[in-house]
């Protein structure tokens, strides 16, 4: 990749809103039901049926709008996007076009320690289509309309990202935010959170945008990154070979690791958008916005700042802890239980606990070690009952369901030995049994001291207070 090129990226994200029923009908939105069992008369577009807006979907759009600092339109309009496809029962999709429910706002991202703000263009409400199933029907196509009418919020960013990593950071931040505020479950495998990327390249320093391609089928952060990197290379190579980028929609092929053309601008539909006469303009009162505002949790950015200011955490640790609301909540619960010592708590949450959660592939709120239990362990470390090393062993035992920290300590006899006399006796034994190491130490080999410490810990079965063992050993060795 030539350094003379700059990539410009904007993302369009479809977040499926976590409502119990569909955006314009009463049918359930639950995932995974048998085909066409969650499609009512409205969803299959029987003659004469009419859409009725689900206010819970609007409430979620307002939440997102407030969380990104966007403007909530007091009046927005549903429009029909007309095109024929077998999984689009009405022959049009109800969406918002000229007057979306949210405009503006921004998402903060951190890449290589630097914070950047990605501006949002808009977020609008729309309904999802059904699914066409091309396999298993002997040359025919099956249609499953369970997904038809599922509420979506399409969140469109400005072309503010300048690398695939920034795009991924944005997508992750948005993903975290929608889950944080409870508007979307973020399940990318089930398609609850889908990104399309608009990618163009231009000579570095140029102020005008190059011709963009829209890349679809990016159902993981890894694919998003790879697809953008590939598309960036493809466009640069094309231009450097004297060609020009054609505006088109391209599909990411994860098997081949490349994007390929799906449809060109010329093939693009004329969607004939016009305001849907079946739905009145959506009016959102200041009172409604106020209610939603009051129900919003503390947002990740505010919490991050508070963790740094009030707990003295590093910005990186604070950012990691606020990566999900569950993890942040867990951390706060541990700190509350311990009664302070936030940095020690953070180390445990970001260290042992996060490793455990990753291993089990669960969220913090489903941790087998609840925050109270971890706090119990942290307290034993802080009061010197066990060493940090032993505590890790206890943590594993807790994760394995062996009970609370104190019970494990008692059962396994892990209480740290802090009695000077007892440690002195052990040290005396170790010194007597390791004459060679003592000799080496006295000859000036510092390593031998560490080996002697190790022998003391071993002889105490890890229970000797390491600081005390150190001091006594030093004293005895003179």
């Amino acid at each position, binding site marked *: 990749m030539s350094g003379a090129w700059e990539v410009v990226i904007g993302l369009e994200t479809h977040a499926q809103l976590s409502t119990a029923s569909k955006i314009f009908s009463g049918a359930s939105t639950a995932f995974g039901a048998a085909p066409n069992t969650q499609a009512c*008369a409205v969803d*299959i*577009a*029987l*003659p*004469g*049926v*009419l*859409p*009725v*807006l689900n206010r819970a979907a609007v409430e979620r759009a307002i939440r997102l709008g407030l969380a990104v600092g966007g403007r909530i339109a007091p009046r927005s309009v549903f429009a*029909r996007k*007309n095109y*024929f496809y*077998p999984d689009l*029962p*009405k*022959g*049009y999709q109800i969406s918002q076009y000229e007057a979306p429910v949210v405009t503006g706002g921004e998402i903060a991202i951190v890449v290589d320690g630097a914070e950047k703000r990605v501006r949002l263009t808009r977020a609008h409400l729309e309904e999802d289509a059904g699914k066409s199933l091309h396999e298993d029907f002997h040359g025919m196509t099956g*249609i499953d309309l369970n997904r038809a009418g599922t509420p979506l919020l399409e969140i469109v960013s400005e072309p503010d990202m300048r690398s695939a990593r920034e795009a991924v950071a944005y997508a992750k931040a948005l993903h975290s935010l929608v889950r944080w505020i409870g508007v979307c479950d973020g399940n990318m495998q089930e398609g609850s959170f889908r990104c399309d990327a608009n990618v163009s390249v231009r000579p570095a320093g140029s102020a005008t945008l190059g011709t963009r391609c829209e890349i679809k089928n990016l159902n993981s952060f890894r694919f998003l990154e790879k697809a953008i990197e590939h598309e960036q290379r493809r466009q640069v190579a094309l231009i450097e070979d004297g060609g020009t980028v054609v505006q088109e929609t391209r599909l990411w092929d994860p098997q081949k690791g490349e994007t390929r053309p799906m449809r060109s601008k010329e093939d693009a539909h*004329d969607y*004939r*958008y*016009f305001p849907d*006469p*079946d*739905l*009145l303009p959506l009016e959102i009162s200041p009172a409604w916005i106020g209610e939603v505002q009051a129900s919003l949790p503390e947002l990740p950015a505010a919490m991050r700042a508070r963790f740094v200011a009030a707990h003295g955490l590093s910005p990186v640790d604070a950012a990691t802890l606020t990566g999900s609301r569950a993890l942040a909540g867990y951390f706060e619960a541990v700190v509350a239980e311990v009664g302070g010592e936030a940095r020690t708590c953070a180390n445990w949450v970001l260290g042992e606990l996060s490793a455990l959660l990753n291993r089990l592939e669960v969220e913090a709120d489903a941790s087998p070690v609840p925050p109270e239990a971890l706090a119990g362990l942290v307290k034993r470390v802080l009061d010197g009952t066990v060493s940090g090393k032993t505590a890790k062993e206890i943590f594993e035992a807790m994760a394995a369901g062996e009970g609370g920290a104190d019970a494990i300590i008692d059962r396994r006899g892990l209480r740290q030995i802090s009695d000077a006399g007892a440690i002195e006796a052990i040290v005396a034994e170790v010194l007597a049994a390791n004459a060679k190491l003592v000799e080496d130490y006295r000859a000036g080999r510092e390593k031998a001291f560490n080996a002697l410490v190790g022998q003391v810990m071993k002889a105490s079965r890890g229970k000797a207070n390491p600081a005390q063992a150190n001091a006594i050993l030093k004293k005895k060795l003179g």
Partner: protein
Amino acid sequence: MFELPLADLAARLRDRQVSSEELTRLFLGRIARLGAGLNAFITVDEEKALAAARAADARLARGEGAPLTGIPVAHKDLFCAKGWRTTCGSRMLADFVSPYDAHVVEQFDRAGAVLVGKTNMDEFAMGSSNENSHFGPVRNPWDPARVPGGSSGGSAAAVAARLVPAATGTDTGGSIRQPASHTGTSGIRPTYGAVSRYGMVAFASSLDQGGAFGQGARGLALMLNVMAGFDERDSTSVDRPKEDYTRDLDRPLEGVRVGLPKEYFTADLSPDVAACVSAAVRELERQGARTVEVSLPNQALAVPVYYVIAPAEASSNLSRFDGVRYGHRAANYADLADMYRKSRAEGFGAEVQRRILVGTYVLSHGYYDAYYLQAQRVRRLIARDFTEAFKACDVIAGPAAPSVAFPIGEKSDDPVQMYLEDLYTISVNLAGLPGLSVPCGFGAGGMPVGLQLIGDYFGEARMLNVAHRYQQATDWHRRLPPGAA
């Protein structure tokens, strides 16, 4: 007894002078005898009708009857009725049996009305003559060589020939008032939003409104009492308290201000129709009403505006008829696009296709602003004209159609001439106002003429009051077509 108006039949049912089953058999007999010649019905179901009649009789016997309990009625065939074929006069839905009830159908059922059949109509309510039906044209009971008007021609003809005492219709650009005028029946289109559109197959959503046909204003008021009211399944349904539309029927007309739009009484209006309407206005004056001239300066733009907005909405509304889930699907096709093309070309008639094409065109990129958006702007001006006019009057009076019913085939080849049939009705739809037509005499060829009354928003009761008082002094609405006796 068949010639009695709805209210009188209801009284006899309540007094047990006649049973609903007897009454239903009486009208089913008339349908069997006269219906085929008029082609007013697409579906008649004796079995279902008689079962409903017996249920109504049981209810009446318990003394739980409502005004419409036991009254045989017909629904225009674009109201979905569970278990009934709902064709919209189209080959596309020729075999479509609805799995659910429209709000209007539900309300009539709840009131105990007896559904005897579904009436013929212009395909998807597109037409002013009822010649655009896949099931053949409807004939005017006053002269079988003439059209009954449209698109609710089947309902109008059925009520005119007393095949049923009452029927529903829909009015998107005049589809109740114009056929009422042409068949000597009374027909009302309520304010947009007064009657739920749920289950009423859409032609042009912002203009469609369900309404009713009957002999006279009292019957219309009784039907409106059943049909109107808030329905949360229609987002454009207006949430307001239920009202009794019969409450003002007998109010004297002293002091009522009747507006006469000068744009309605021009050379476009046939002299015979003008004479009948003028005589009707004189009758209103005789009863103490005061006439005032009003102006609707944008009246001339109503037809062109309508023929942008209505097709635009229709082109989108009719997209669901794609042969994928229900409705007509071509027997042979090469691929998906071919299936759409053939199914829709075979399933839709010429006028429907014409409007889909026009609607698609006016919504297309590059034309949207010039046509659709411009039409919406003018539509607001047309509505404002009425708002201004209603500052000076309580109801507006005028013709419902420019001339009497024309011979079948006369305007078939000239869509623009056909569109002008709705010259006096369309602006009401664009403004969302209520309107009705009541018989006010006979014009050329002895064909009926209708007096149109237009009310202010939710001014149905006042409109019905004027119509009822007029009918107290006249008997045009009681006249029977020659073959109907």
